[in-house]
């Protein structure tokens, strides 16, 4: 549409969690006025543990939202017209961790260890690891958030996000050993910017401007995170500046992939979706294959 | 007894209770409009049940209780226990029937005050029921039944919690009101003397199942001045009633034991 750029368009972006480096680029675009420069007035809405972002996007209460690849495909199968536009991570920062003092050196060893493994609901890799290792004495238990499980029980492994929970544990005097789950051959797509198909079809221009602002925002954030971190620390008092810096430092390779520059930033490619769908079909999260091409738009 | 259009009629009435069995068996009774009837009978004979049948609070198991519409429209009932609403003041308790009838405020105030004065509780209007003595509660209950100037007044031992002086005074008042207003009064009492003094007709019941032992007219005139209680006519009639009750009630006294 040809509306004049000085009239900013109101847009609502719903996160699926509180402000964190995971969403750094989205905030950076705001801090640096990039949305405004693209004629957008973006309201970023922090999420909660149980915020139903996808239904909100599908129903039009949000214009953009953050979700995982698994959620996107599951939602599409249920008839929700959700399209992924931008991926924060090129490799999932999902990990399992044990105490550093533990003798466990790999996920393969963990699967034979007799440990409790605390994992939140709906993690794709649980089924994958089950099939790969056929663990007999490992108990999958619910993940309760934080690292209290690990602190209280030396024979517990738990899910974590690179740079986040391991740092929490270290700050409590318990160093950890971290195993990246993606290295086992299973990879969810951890943080996707999504919108609904209708918006994409009817307002291409808006989506284009949004993506442009976001692309710049992320570059800017990764180059100079300090101003954005100041904002995040204010929004999410559970975070300190130093934790934010550490988290970003650890997650940066997962965001940028193996590349040295920004060439892989935000990239969405058929291969990652086909792999994900393959896993989901294997593990019963999807009943039948779906039309993958309408589930995402390639980026860049 | 010849049938009367505006009479309360019991026609072969029987009443059974699930747990306790037959209380009333084949009762025929007719109470004419405007009559002042006293009902007497031993404890547990079914007097309260009979009043409840008249009021429509209980349905007969067999037979029929006919109550003329005129009497049905505006009734007063003094239960055997006071049954006041604990959250309402004495005044508000007495006001209840008028509130239900939707009378204007001013009228309610006037009527309630008159009614309370009648039972000697003009200064107790603001109290809550739990601060009343037993006899005071019953008097409030009487005031409540009178306040709406009912055309049918059912009283279940209204004065038994009262001292003799108060009792006598209230009976006299009741008779005066009845004379003035001409409503039908059915009055359960345990006192033969009271029955003879206040009523025009006394019906004496047997022990359960309730039957009529005696049905006596009391021809002492419409006006019953205080001095009637010390008159020979009254003493004579009372003595005769006592006799009749003693004779017919022989069986019942044995029962009651």
């Amino acid at each position, binding site marked *: 549409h040809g509306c004049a750029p000085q009239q900013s368009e109101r847009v609502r972006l719903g996160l699926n969690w509180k402000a964190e480096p995971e969403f750094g680029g989205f905030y950076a675009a705001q801090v640096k006025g990039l949305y405004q420069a693209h004629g957008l007035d973006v309201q970023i809405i922090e999420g909660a543990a149980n915020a139903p972002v996808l239904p909100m996007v599908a129903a039009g209460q949000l214009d953009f939202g953050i979700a995982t690849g698994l959620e996107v495909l599951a939602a599409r199968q249920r008839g929700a017209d959700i399209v992924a536009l931008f991926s924060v991570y090129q490799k999932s920062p999902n990990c399992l961790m044990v105490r550093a003092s533990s003798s466990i050196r790999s996920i393969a060893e963990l699967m034979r260890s007799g440990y409790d493994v605390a994992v939140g609901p709906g993690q794709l890799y649980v089924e994958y690891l089950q099939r790969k290792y056929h663990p007999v004495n490992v108990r999958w238990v*619910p993940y309760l*958030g934080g690292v209290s499980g690990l602190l209280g029980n030396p024979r517990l492994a738990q899910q974590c996000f690179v740079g986040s929970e391991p740092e929490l544990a270290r700050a409590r005097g318990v160093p950890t050993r971290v195993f990246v789950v993606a290295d086992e051959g299973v990879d969810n797509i951890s943080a996707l910017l999504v919108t609904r198909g209708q918006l994409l079809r009817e307002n291409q221009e808006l989506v284009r401007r949004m993506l442009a602002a976001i692309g710049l925002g992320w570059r800017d954030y990764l180059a100079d995170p300090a101003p954005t971190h100041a904002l995040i620390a204010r929004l999410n008092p559970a975070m300190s500046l130093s934790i934010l810096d550490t988290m970003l430092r650890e997650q940066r390779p997962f965001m940028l992939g193996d590349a040295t520059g920004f060439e892989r930033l935000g990239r969405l490619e058929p291969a990652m979706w086909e792999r994900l769908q393959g896993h989901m079909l294997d593990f019963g999260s999807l009943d039948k294959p779906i039309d993958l091409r309408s589930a995402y738009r390639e980026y860049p | 007894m010849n049938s009367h259009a505006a009479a309360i009629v019991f026609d072969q009435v029987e009443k059974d209770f*699930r747990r306790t069995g037959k209380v009333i068996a084949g009762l025929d009774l007719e109470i004419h409009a405007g009559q002042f009837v006293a009902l007497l009978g031993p404890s547990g004979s079914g007097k309260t049940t009979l009043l409840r049948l008249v009021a429509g609070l209980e349905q007969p198991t067999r037979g029929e209780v006919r109550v003329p519409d005129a009497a049905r429209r505006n009734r007063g009932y003094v239960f055997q226990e006071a049954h006041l609403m604990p959250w309402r003041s004495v005044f508000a308790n007495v006001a209840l029937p008028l509130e239900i009838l939707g009378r204007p405020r001013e009228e309610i105030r006037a009527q309630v005050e008159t009614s309370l004065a009648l039972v000697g509780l003009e200064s107790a209007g603001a109290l809550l029921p739990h601060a009343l003595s037993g006899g005071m509660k019953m008097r409030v209950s009487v005031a409540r039944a009178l306040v709406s100037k009912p055309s049918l007044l059912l009283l279940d031992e209204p004065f038994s919690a009262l001292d003799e002086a108060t009792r006598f005074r209230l009976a006299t008042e009741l008779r005066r009101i009845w004379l003035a207003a001409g409503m039908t009064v059915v009055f359960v009492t345990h006192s033969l003397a009271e029955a003879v003094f206040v009523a025009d007709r006394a019906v004496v019941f047997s022990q359960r199942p309730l039957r009529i032992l005696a049905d006596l007219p009391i021809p002492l005139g419409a006006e019953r001045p205080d001095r009637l209680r010390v008159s020979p006519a009254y003493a004579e009639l009372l003595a005769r009633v006592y006799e009749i009750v003693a004779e017919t009630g022989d069986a019942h006294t044995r029962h009651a034991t």
Partner: protein
Amino acid sequence: MISPLRLFAPLILFAVVVTLLEALSQSGIAPRYLLPPPSEVWATLRGDAREYLRAATITLTEAGLGLLLSFLVGNGLAILMSVSRWLSAALQPYAVFFQTVPLIAIAPLLVIWFGYGIPTVVVAAFIVSVFPVIVNTLAGCRAVEPALRDLFRLYGASRFQTLTKLTLPHAIPNMVTGLRIAAGLAMIGAIVGEFIAGGGLGGLIDAARTQQRLDKVFAAVLLASLAGVLMVGLVNLSARVFVGRWREPGTD
């Protein structure tokens, strides 16, 4: 007389509600990703009937045990509080604390103390359901007719006698009301407990939710509610058996 009404009235309403939901869903007014059509929920339920039934049995057992705990502890506390004003004044705010603390916030504590699995879930059901028992029983104990209290004082009844022969029998109807509320809460407590400790219908809901399998979520929710209705029904039944006798004077 009551039985057929009790049964048919809700069934008729049920039929109405189901038909309405189905129509909403099939016509596309309520999208499937928000509200799965009842037919789909039913198909899911039938497809995995055994799994759902097993899960429901577990949850029901846990909720039942939690309710039992609430019954014992809640009534015990209420009795203590009815006997001593000090205790009552001191404990009441803590009972409220118990009521308002979000289970999720103390989940790690629960798991550390009671482990993963059934005990934690039972404790969760207990925590959520104990407050109504306390409050209702206490209200019942306090509402005893003063004249009857006088009677017991007169005969020099001990505290224990007054309790067992007067206060408790008098409080039974209130106790039943409290249990009726607690039964539903125990069910919800058990499900939230299963979010924490795993297993049962809560586990199913938790897993299905992230996969957007609302049909599964609603199948489990439906079973949970049925289990809740069953528990409340059991409470009502016991009420009828133990209380109905003298609290329904209008029946004769």
